[in-house]
């Protein structure tokens, strides 16, 4: 156990800080759930890439810096310290990227990872279907082999970023008549392919960042399949593990929110409820606990270990922490909580954040599913429905 940064790590922090201070937009960007905001966020992705900060842990050959996980954590801490925007390409860099790194061919790595790191292609995920949400193995969308192409038909929904992104990834049934986890394949597709219709879904906050996708005999080259035909479930589970596990939600995000919450509390201390004071302290404590846990997981991975079903514990913890912090902020704001813009014109980011935080316990596998996984795989309890 060594909880001091090396001089090299401190130098790296200073380097990130200097770059972020010089480049992070001074004014918050418009939400990336609308066209204007998405485009602003794509510009930011390219700015990041211009500094070679697109995805620091990836090998240099794919547009990364080849850094280790401690450096990644330092990068993320400084990113959120500086108030860096949400990552428009998070589905690409944090989910698909690690998946391609693990399962992709050298050609696929060169073809997809480098443009991802450079912010040139924005990615959407396409897991859920109307009849396959938490029960993802109920997927029905088909990809039928026709020579060196698949012909995809079916429907995906709740597809994050799909209204504006360039490419998508998902799993499709490639074996006719197959059931559940069998006969699925992991396929990447150009969202502008003939036969794809995107229908943006208007969300709770009124914006339309995610979408339904309709596939009408969409032809996709076979070389867009990741790993073997029929191995889609295994690949998707690995991707979901990345999502719940280390990368999607780095601790800096929550530490930054906790710090802003402390500042908000100080402004409203005179009229705040006693319960809010404890909730603010809990926010700091839990954000710190999440950070320690992430450093601990990073150290385990660097020592040759891996993250398994513990990823479910992480996902439950950060999503419920995020919701609790924003709920507390809404209480502190009192009557002003309902305003989308405060009377001085500033966006009410707490309201926007609270609404978004409500999706946390649902996306990336609902927290009910995460609790089942925790009980079945970490506590060895019988599977649901087992007699």
């Amino acid at each position, binding site marked *: 156990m060594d909880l001091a940064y090396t001089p090299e790590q401190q130098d790296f922090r200073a380097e990130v800080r200097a770059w972020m201070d010089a480049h992070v937009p001074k004014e918050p960007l418009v939400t990336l759930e609308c066209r204007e905001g998405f485009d602003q966020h794509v510009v930011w992705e390219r700015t990041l890439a211009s500094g070679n900060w697109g995805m620091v842990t990836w090998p240099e050959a794919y547009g990364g810096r080849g850094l280790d996980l401690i450096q990644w954590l330092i990068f993320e801490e400084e990113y959120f310290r500086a108030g860096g925007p949400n990552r428009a390409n998070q589905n690409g860099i944090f989910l698909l990227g690690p998946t391609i790194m693990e399962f992709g061919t050298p050609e696929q790595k060169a073809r997809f990872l480098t443009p991802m790191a450079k912010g040139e292609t924005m990615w959407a995920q396409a897991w859920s279907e109307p009849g396959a949400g938490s029960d993802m193995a109920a997927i029905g969308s088909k990809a039928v082999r026709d020579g060196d192409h698949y012909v995809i038909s079916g429907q995906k929904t709740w597809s994050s970023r799909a209204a504006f992104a360039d490419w998508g990834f998902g799993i499709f049934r490639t074996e006719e008549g197959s059931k559940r986890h069998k006969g699925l394949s992991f396929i990447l597709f150009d969202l502008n392919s003939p036969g794809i219709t995107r229908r943006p879904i208007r969300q709770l906050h009124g914006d339309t960042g995610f979408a339904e996708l309709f596939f009408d005999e969409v032809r996709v080259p076979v070389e867009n399949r990741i790993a073997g035909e029929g191995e889609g479930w295994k690949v998707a589970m690995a991707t979901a593990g990345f999502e719940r596990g280390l990368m999607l939600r780095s601790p800096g995000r929550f530490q930054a929110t906790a*710090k802003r919450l402390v500042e908000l509390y100080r402004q409203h201390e005179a009229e705040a409820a006693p319960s809010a004071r404890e909730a603010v302290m809990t926010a700091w404590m839990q954000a710190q606990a999440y950070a320690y846990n992430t450093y601990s997981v990073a150290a385990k991975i660097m020592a040759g270990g891996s993250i398994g079903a513990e990823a479910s514990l992480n996902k439950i913890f950060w999503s419920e922490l995020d919701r609790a912090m924003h709920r507390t902020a809404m209480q502190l704001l009192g009557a002003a909580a309902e305003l989308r813009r405060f009377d001085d014109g500033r966006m009410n980011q707490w309201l926007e954040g609270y609404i978004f935080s409500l999706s946390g316990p649902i996306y990336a596998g609902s927290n009910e599913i995460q609790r089942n996984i925790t009980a079945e795989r970490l506590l060895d309890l019988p599977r649901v429905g087992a007699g």
Partner: protein
Amino acid sequence: MEFLLNEDQLALAETVRDYLAGTHGPDVLRRLDAGDNRDPAIWQGLVDMGLTGLLVPEEFGGLGLGLVDAALIARECGRACLAEPLVDTAFVAVPWLLAQGDAAQMAAIVAGTAKPSVAHAINPWVSDGEGATLDSIDPLRNLTQPVGAPSSDPLLLDLGALMVAAQLAGLAEAMLDQSAAYAKIRTQFGQPIGAFQAVKHQLATAAVAIEFAKPVLWRAAQALADGLSSAPVHISHAKIAATDAAIQMAETAIQVHGAMGYTYEVDLHFWMKRSWALAGAWGSRAFHLKRIDDAVIGGGLAIGPDQTFA
């Protein structure tokens, strides 16, 4: 920067865990409860493993290990619901006496013949002391009135709070294991109750609290070992996190055990009672929250994404 318990630390903890599982099971707790609460043979076993000298420098015959090692073993003591005063003696009194340059009793502590029980002003009572006994809900606690003036040294308080947090983490883990085991064998409606999501989700929720209390504990132990000025804040954090996890786990455990959990027959009660006893020891929730309050809201500690290890 390496937030990792090393192989030696994990191996030592596993050795102690196996030893206590073999020699200090629920049957022993029942025997002690029916008898004198303490057993010289059990104490001697701990002495023979070198645990009384864990923090004693090698020049006095000890192992010369550090506070993270001690916290790991204190967690095992909690897991086993150990009755003997190993933690108070070897992991609280020893480092405190050494910090004051008082090594007079070290050889006797290593040999197991001296068992100093330390009184601090924050605790109205002391376990295994010389004074009149009090009736704790924990049948094996041996709580006594203090004799003489207690110390008010903040270091002693921090050591005590850290080690009680470590025990609470171990107690919580043991209750989680017991509850999961029970949920697998108790059947109702034709299936193990652990197959019902209503049961699964309660246990998973408690597991989350335990999982995220542990790294706080190791961080606090390392902060104290490193002599960080912020160590008291991190120890208070650990005490709150471990206490909350243990109390939540105890309530979940009895719920999962159903009516059986309300009996003396099922072993669970020893662990619940120890958790209740330790929850308010070495500083109440209010005391520790106040230290967090001063640091976080009062501004005594730098906070934010770039201040993880402040």
